[in-house]
C-alpha cells in the first residue's frame, strides 16, 4: 500500500513536470546551469571511472584468456564489447547516482525543509517547472554525452593497460575491437543512458521535493534517492537487455 502511494505521488510529480515543461521561460536559466552541473562537472569522475573500468577489464581478460590458442585480439573484442554494451553505461550511472542524484535530492530536500519551495510557490512560481523540469531534462540530455566520454576513456584505459602490462599490443586490441563492433551496441548504450539519466534525476527530484523533517529528513531523502536510483538502474538494465538484445 505504501509503495502504491509513493508510486502515485511520483507519477503525479512527473505529470506536473510534463505539463509544465512548456513554461520554458521559467526554467531556461536553471536548465543551462543544470546542464553544466550534470554534464561538465561530472566529466572528471566519469573519465576516472572509464579509465579504471577499461584497465581492469583488460588485465582480467588477459589473465583469464592466457592461452596460445586464443588470439590476443579477442581481449580487445571482449573489453570493447563489454564497455560499450554494459560497463560505460551501468558503472557510470551507479557513480552518477551518487554524484548527481545525491546533489539533486539534497538541494531540493534542503529547499523543502527550509520553506524555499513554499516561498517560490507563494510568489506565484510553478516550483515543479522551476526546479524539477530542468534537472530531469539535464539528466536526459547529458547522460548520453557522458556515455561517450566513459566509452572513449574506457577503451583508452583498456589499450593503455594492455600496452603497459605487455599483455595486449594496441594493434591487436584495436583489431579485436573493430572486428566485433556493431553500431547497435552504441544505440543500446545511448538508450540505457537516456533511461538511467531519467531514473536518477526524476527519483532524486521526487525524494527531495517531498522531503520532510529537517536535517535528518534531508539525509534520509538523499540516502533513499541514491539507493532507489541504484536499484532501479539495475532493474532497468535487465529489462532493457531483455527487450533490446
Amino acid at each position, binding site marked *: 500500500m505504501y509503495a502504491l502511494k509513493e508510486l502515485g505521488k511520483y507519477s503525479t510529480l512527473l505529470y506536473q513536470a510534463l505539463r509544465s515543461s512548456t513554461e520554458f521561460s521559467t526554467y531556461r536559466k536553471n536548465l543551462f546551469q543544470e546542464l553544466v552541473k550534470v554534464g561538465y562537472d561530472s566529466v572528471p569522475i566519469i573519465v576516472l571511472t572509464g579509465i579504471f573500468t577499461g584497465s581492469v577489464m583488460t588485465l582480467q581478460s588477459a589473465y583469464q584468456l592466457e592461452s596460445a590458442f586464443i588470439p590476443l585480439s579477442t581481449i580487445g573484442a571482449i573489453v570493447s564489447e563489454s564497455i560499450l554494451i554494459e560497463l560505460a553505461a551501468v558503472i557510470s550511472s551507479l557513480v552518477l547516482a551518487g554524484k548527481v542524484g545525491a546533489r539533486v535530492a539534497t538541494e531540493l530536500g*534542503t529547499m523543502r525543509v527550509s*520553506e*524555499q519551495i513554499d*516561498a517560490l510557490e*507563494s*510568489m*506565484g*512560481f*510553478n516550483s515543479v517547472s522551476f526546479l524539477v523540469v530542468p534537472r530531469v531534462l539535464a539528466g536526459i540530455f547529458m547522460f548520453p554525452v557522458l556515455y561517450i566520454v566513459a566509452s572513449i576513456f574506457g577503451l583508452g584505459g583498456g589499450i593503455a593497460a594492455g600496452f603497459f602490462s605487455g599483455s595486449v599490443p594496441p594493434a591487436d586490441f584495436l583489431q579485436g575491437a573493430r572486428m566485433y563492433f556493431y553500431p547497435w551496441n552504441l544505440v543500446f548504450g545511448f538508450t540505457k543512458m537516456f533511461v538511467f539519466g531519467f531514473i536518477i534525476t526524476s527519483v532524486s527530484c521526487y525524494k527531495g521535493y517531498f522531503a520532510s523533517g529537517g536535517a535528518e529528513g534531508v539525509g534520509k531523502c538523499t540516502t533513499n534517492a541514491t539507493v532507489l536510483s541504484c536499484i532501479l538502474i539495475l532493474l532497468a538494465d535487465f529489462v532493457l537487455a531483455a527487450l533490446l538484445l
Partner: protein
Amino acid sequence: MIEIKNLSKSFGDLLVWKDVTFNIEDGETLAIIGRSGCGKSVLLKHINALLYPDSGEVIIDGSDIHKLDYVEQRKLRQKFGVLFQGSALFDSINTFENIAFPLRYFTKQTEQEIHKNVMDALSHVNLENVADKETSELSGGMRKRVGLARAIVLKPTYIMYDEPTSGLDPQTASEINELIINMAETLDITSIVVTHDMNSVLDIADKVSFLDNQELSWHGTVQEMRVSNQKNLIDFISASEYQI
C-alpha cells in the same frame, strides 16, 4: 478583502481545526494567536493555497483561491508577500538577487529599474548596505528584514508574516514590529501575522483571532481582547511575559 468561511482541516485522524470563519478587511492588521501546534501556520498556508482544506472556502477579492485553476491561483498568489518563519531566503544567490528574484521573473523591468526597486525595498527595512552580502553572512534579524524586503518588492496587496519575531532578541523583535507597522501604514498593505508573542500583538494588530481547542475560539479587536473575560484567552495572555 479575505473571507474565510467554515474552514476545516485534518491531517489523517488528527483534526487541526474545524469551522473557522472570519474576515480580514482591507488595510487592517490581523494577528492569529494560539499555542504552539494549534495550527496557526497551517491556517496561513490555507490563505494562499499552499495547503487545501477538507471543507470550507477562502475567498480573496471575490475568488475562492482553492477552486481556481493553477494558473489563476498563481496570479492571485502574486498579490501576496510572505515572510516565512525561517525567512526562506534562497541560499544559492546573494541578498540583492534574492530581492530581485520576483522582479526578474514577473516583470519586464530594466536592470536600472530592478536595481532601484531592490534598493527601495532594502531602504524600507533599513538595510541598504547589505545588498552585496551572501545570505549566509546575515544575522537572524537581518534575514527576517531581507525576507520582508523580498516580500514587498512586488508591491503586494496582502502580506503574511509567519512568526516574524521568533528567535530574535527583544530589541530586534521590537524593530521588526515597527517595520510591520510601517509597512501597513506607508504601503497600505493588509497584514496577517501569525505569532504567539503578545508584545507583537499589542504593538501591531488591529484585530486578533485566537485558535484553541481545534477551533476559532475568539475573534475581535485588540481593545475587545483587553477587556474580554473569556477564560482560555485570559489564560493564554497571562501565560505570556506581557501583562495587560
